[in-house]
């Protein structure tokens, strides 16, 4: 059961802009087992989307660059794959759902055509009636009437559009689904529905998922593993029990949770912490959290903290030895 699907080792990503280099992802290690869900949590700008785009190798051309590290899917390196090989993986083995469903569908094609496209790309042998049958099946799966496949994106609500995007992402039954804040842009009532549906579908298809979210309640309900990201680093990582019930935590995690809620307290939103995340083009020396940390010691301003390992949990902080 505990079979490794995706392994990220020491991933570093930079954006080269006209002004400076943005160190968006720094030495990230992550592992996801088959069928598992990993919650990736952190403030805006922490590098969550960048991490997901790196896995797809869809960083903006010429601007975003993976400067070091390794990403392996089923043991084979993604970093060394050609663009052509990546096209066979995208949409088939790894799918991605983006944050804003209002803009993630092409306005000038019918939603049915857009779902059909991904099927045609990865199952070139399907004839048109097989493709259409599969589209219908997917529409039913995400709770939309298949008759509506001839309509255009503007004829659907945000929640329905996200269902279409999910249908598209799951069309080829991927092994890994990257869901980048899939419900943030939706109404609160719709959020729960869409999330429940995603959870059911991923269990049915045995798809592993990286769920990027702000919502700790969602993490508690949906995830097996949790990784907390700050300034491009994973500062704490562990099982959902480690994070919600463990006794040792990174000061940032504690800040996030306010006081750590137990797993029954649902939908506890990220707690604001005093200060701002450092500018990723100008990161502080030592621990990147030191300007905001209430436990900051001299060593924190000088040396990068080591990774403290405690069973399934890891914490990047000088407080632990």
């Amino acid at each position, binding site marked *: 059961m505990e079979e490794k699907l995706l392994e990220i080792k020491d991933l570093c990503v930079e954006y080269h802009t006209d002004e400076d280099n943005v160190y968006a992802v720094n030495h990230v290690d992550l592992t996801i087992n088959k069928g598992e869900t990993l919650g990736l949590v952190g403030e805006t700008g922490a590098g969550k989307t960048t991490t997901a785009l790196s896995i797809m190798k869809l960083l903006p051309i010429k601007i975003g660059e993976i400067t070091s590290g390794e990403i392996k899917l089923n043991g084979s390196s993604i970093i060394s794959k050609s663009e052509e090989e990546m096209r066979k993986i995208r949409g088939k083995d790894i799918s*991605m759902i*983006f944050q804003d469903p209002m803009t993630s*569908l092409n*306005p*000038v*094609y019918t939603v049915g055509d857009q779902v059909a496209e991904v099927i045609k790309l*990865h199952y070139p042998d399907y004839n048109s009636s097989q493709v259409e049958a599969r589209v219908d099946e997917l529409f039913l799966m995400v709770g939309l009437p298949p008759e509506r496949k001839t309509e255009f994106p*503007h004829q659907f609500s945000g929640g329905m559009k996200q269902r279409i995007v999910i249908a598209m992402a799951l069309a080829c039954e991927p092994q890994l689904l990257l869901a980048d804040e899939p419900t943030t842009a939706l109404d609160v009532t719709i959020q729960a529905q869409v999330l429940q549906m995603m959870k059911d579908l991923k269990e049915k298809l045995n798809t592993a998922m990286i769920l990027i979210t702000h919502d700790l309640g969602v993490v508690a309900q949906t995830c097996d593993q949790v990784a907390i990201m700050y300034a491009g680093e994973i500062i704490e990582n562990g099982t959902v029990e480690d994070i919600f019930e463990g006794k040792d935590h990174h000061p940032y995690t504690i800040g996030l949770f306010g006081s750590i809620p137990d797993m029954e307290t649902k939908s506890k939103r990220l707690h604001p912490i005093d200060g701002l995340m450092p500018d990723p083009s100008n990161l502080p020396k030592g621990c990147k959290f030191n300007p905001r940390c209430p436990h900051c010691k001299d060593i924190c301003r000088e040396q990068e903290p080591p990774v403290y390992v405690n069973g399934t949990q890891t914490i990047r902080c000088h407080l632990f030895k």
Partner: protein
Amino acid sequence: MHKYIIKRLLMLIPVMLGISFILYSIMTLTPGDPAQLILGPGATEEAIELKRQELGTDKGFWEGYVDWLTNAVQGDFGTSYRSKEPVFNEVFARFPNTLKLASSAIILSVIFGIGIGIFQAVRQYSMSDNIISGITLVLTSMPDFWIGLILIIVFAVWLKVLPASGANHWYNFIMPALTASVGYTAGTIRLTRSSMLEVIRSDYIRTARAKGAAEKTIIFKHALKNALLPVVTLIGINLGWQLGGTIIVEQIFAIPGIGTLMIGAVRSKDTPLLMASVLFVAFLSALINLITDILYAYIDPRIKAEYSK
């Protein structure tokens, strides 16, 4: 959609009325008597009076306009003061030249404008992108007559491969079409490039990439159709302009088109001829405008939904 088209066509009626009234006012209220102009400076007062009666310019302002309008509504737009021919005979004799010039200029601008625009967008900030941007900037700032003259000097005077004037053969139109198309091409290139760049950055293009679509599919299927929306409008405007007859290009290459016809009509105060040619051109422009809008709705389902309301 049908309702929308009919509404737009009906809206043309007041526009045409307005144009005709303004033209009539300008022609009759500005100094210069067509009868005097035709007969020349030596004509007697009686001869001029007779000529006025013949032309119908002896009537009062309102009577004259109402007469014109009454006939026009019945399809009679009058005869030219000079040639005595029904005005539309002259307009239709000239129009094919303008149409040939306009359509070839616009086709050139569409092919090169869209083609080069896409090429640049795909290679943003590359050497070729920068060079082309520089060239387009220079071309947009060059006046038509200057480009026309350079072409004449190079191809008619030095190389002697193309005729400098006339409209009898298709090759007569090569240089005029090139001259007229330069500005339109440059504009189309710039708009296609910027529109394409904007679309390429959009979320649905990232979605298409995430599906595993090839770059060619992304550019030509997903991006182009969206990026072309503003370009279609520009092409429609350009075509409307060009069908109005570019006076400068027609003059340089001595092409008897609508532009030179209108200039002549203004000079000789040939009111019926000017009104017929301007109304014809205005009607065409409005029609092209409407076709552009229909095309727009055809490309963008959101607009179509708007129109159906």
